[in-house]
């Protein structure tokens, strides 16, 4: 595990989502040595948790699949999972990163047969499904996980369950003696691609997320629509498991708000427009989507996608930011507000409310172990003071997958220039 060969001509990429994978691959395919670190047991990040992408409505298995193939074919990228950077010292062209590696308790012999999961009884929250369901404590993170290897949840180590998993494994893949390790990695440049997290919807107090079961977030809705998700792809409301047919989407839930996130998260409008497709797909006859919005920001070439949704009779647009949500006696969430078009008061009951939550940079308030400049929202600024550390993807701005990939390629190019200088290939 620790045999990582890295020099000051190596590029260190932190974060193994779509941005990190892209940056690592772009750099490696130009001939650079790359170490790619991922905190979770599998690559793919939040992209792998989506049901479909906009605007083409294709599945993320497709886009990620291509990157995984490139990765498997490239000997210059070293992937370390369950790895977290705890410190970075040095300057551009000569960094040393301290990396903490958490134990997986499963070695390379694993064939992903699943015998250990059958043997283990303990169940834990499933973070891949945003904790909407449970999973066995011996698990494979997702259907398309890379590396395709099981993981033992640390909570069962030292219990009979761990021994049961070990006994069930025919390949000697379970190693309960693995310990946490700390290693040092040399690097000439660092690409910081740690992505984003959904804004904590419970902080938007009048919306009742956490108090009302049928108020969920847009990322949770993705998991409900996904056949690999907790409901097998059926949009069922959490309170009573009934099919949700009349669904409200609330835009700017946390974004463009001085009390929450001051920036526009850029993807949420498109995500909700996309999610109205899921509703119509499941209930072509009587599915109903209502989008409450301040103004729809279908950025760039996505305007035609917006126009198609506008033409859909099952979708209603209400120009108003919902002020408050209550719950009626049937457990239906009720949206209250005033429609800006005509200034009419409304209080509309729905089966389910989906909050299009904003993108909070994962680096916000986290001490990145390097000197990095942040903007007023907590994203990494492209600033010369950062030296050889470059933000990529959603660590640097609120971006969709397409733009995150562009941003990651740009970061890779900057990192390549730094290590080229070290190698005296460029002045």
């Amino acid at each position, binding site marked *: 595990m620790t045999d990582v060969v890295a020099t000051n001509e190596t590029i260190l990429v932190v974060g193994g989502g779509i941005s990190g994978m892209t940056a690592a691959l772009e750099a490696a395919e130009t001939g650079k040595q790359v170490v790619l670190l991922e905190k979770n047991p599998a690559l793919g990040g939040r992209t792998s948790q989506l049901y479909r992408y906009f605007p083409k409505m294709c599945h993320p298995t497709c886009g990620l699949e291509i990157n995984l193939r490139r990765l498997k074919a490239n000997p210059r990228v070293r992937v370390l999972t369950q790895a977290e950077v705890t410190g970075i010292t040095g300057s551009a062209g000569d960094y040393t990163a301290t990396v903490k590696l958490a134990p997986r308790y499963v070695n390379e012999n694993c064939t992903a047969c699943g015998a250990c999961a059958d043997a283990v009884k303990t169940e834990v929250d499933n973070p891949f499904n945003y904790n909407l369901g449970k999973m066995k404590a011996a698990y494979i993170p997702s259907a398309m996980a890379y590396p395709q290897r099981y993981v033992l949840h640390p909570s069962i180590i030292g219990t009979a369950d761990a021994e049961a998993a070990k006994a069930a494994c025919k390949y000697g893949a379970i190693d309960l003696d693995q310990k946490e390790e700390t290693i040092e990695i040399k690097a000439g440049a660092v690409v910081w691609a740690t992505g984003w997290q959904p804004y904590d919807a419970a902080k938007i107090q009048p919306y009742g997320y956490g108090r009302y079961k049928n108020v969920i977030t847009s990322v949770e809705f993705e998991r409900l629509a996904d056949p690999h998700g907790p409901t097998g792809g059926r949009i069922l409301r959490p309170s009573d498991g009934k099919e949700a047919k009349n669904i409200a989407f609330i835009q700017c839930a946390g974004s463009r708000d001085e009390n929450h996130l001051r920036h526009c998260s850029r993807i949420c409008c498109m995500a909700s427009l996309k999610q109205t497709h899921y509703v119509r797909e499941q209930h072509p006859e009587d599915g109903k989507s209502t989008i409450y919005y301040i103004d729809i920001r279908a950025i760039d070439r996505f305007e035609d996608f917006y126009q198609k949704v506008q033409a859909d009779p099952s979708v209603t647009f209400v120009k108003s930011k919902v002020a408050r949500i209550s719950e009626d006696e049937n457990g239906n969430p009720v949206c*209250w507000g005033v429609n800006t078009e005509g200034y009419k008061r409304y209080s509309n009951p729905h089966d389910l409310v989906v909050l299009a939550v904003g993108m909070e940079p994962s680096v916000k308030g986290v001490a990145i172990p390097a000197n990095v400049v942040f903007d007023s929202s907590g994203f990494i600024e492209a600033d010369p003071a950062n030296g050889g550390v470059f933000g990529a993807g959603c660590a640097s701005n609120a971006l969709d997958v397409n733009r995150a990939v562009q941003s990651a390629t740009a970061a890779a190019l900057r990192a390549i220039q730094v290590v080229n200088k070290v190698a005296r290939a460029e002045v």
Partner: protein
Amino acid sequence: MSANQEMAAKYKNSFLKEVEDQVEMGEWVKMCMQCGVCSGSCPTNFHPGWEHPPQEIFMMIRAGKREEVLTSPSMWMCTSCYNCIVRCPRKLPITHIMHGLANYAHRLGVAPKNQPTRAFSTLFWSNAIATGRVNELKLSMGLYFKDAEGKINIGEGIKKGLAMKDVALGLLKARRLNPFEIFGGHKCKDQKGIAAMLKKARELEDKRKALPQSGASR
């Protein structure tokens, strides 16, 4: 020329600029993005109260609807609960703007005549500045002996007084109500000082409002 005509002439076509210059916190009006959270959060709004919710008032100001805004009873309905200020995504001081608009309309003499909040505020203010202390007996009497149109009505006053008789007796017993307050009542020591202070405050305010506020960076 009335104060109202004077201001209307001065700002001709820009009511927004007039509000920015003359209304307390008026310079914030342009920051509204019409999301509607203030209107939806207003506790009085879902009862048939406000003719124009705050968000609509802001849009009317920008649209130059001077007459409609200044004569509207809407901003007088504000209960100062501050829900809108707390929730406004752009941190507009909405409560203060509502008070500022109401005050401005009052000074120009175009606010709705018998709007109860306006009538009470006027009564309270003149009561308080007369002696430097609020004379509660005179204040409540002033309210009792008026009808819905704001005219003095003795019969109405006696009726209301009788209805509240038990409360009044209770207050008397607890020594919270002194009937002799009707003859002048207790005063603050330095009445001249209070008057001078209020005069100075008004002077400062007028001076500030004479300076153009709009365009000032914030």
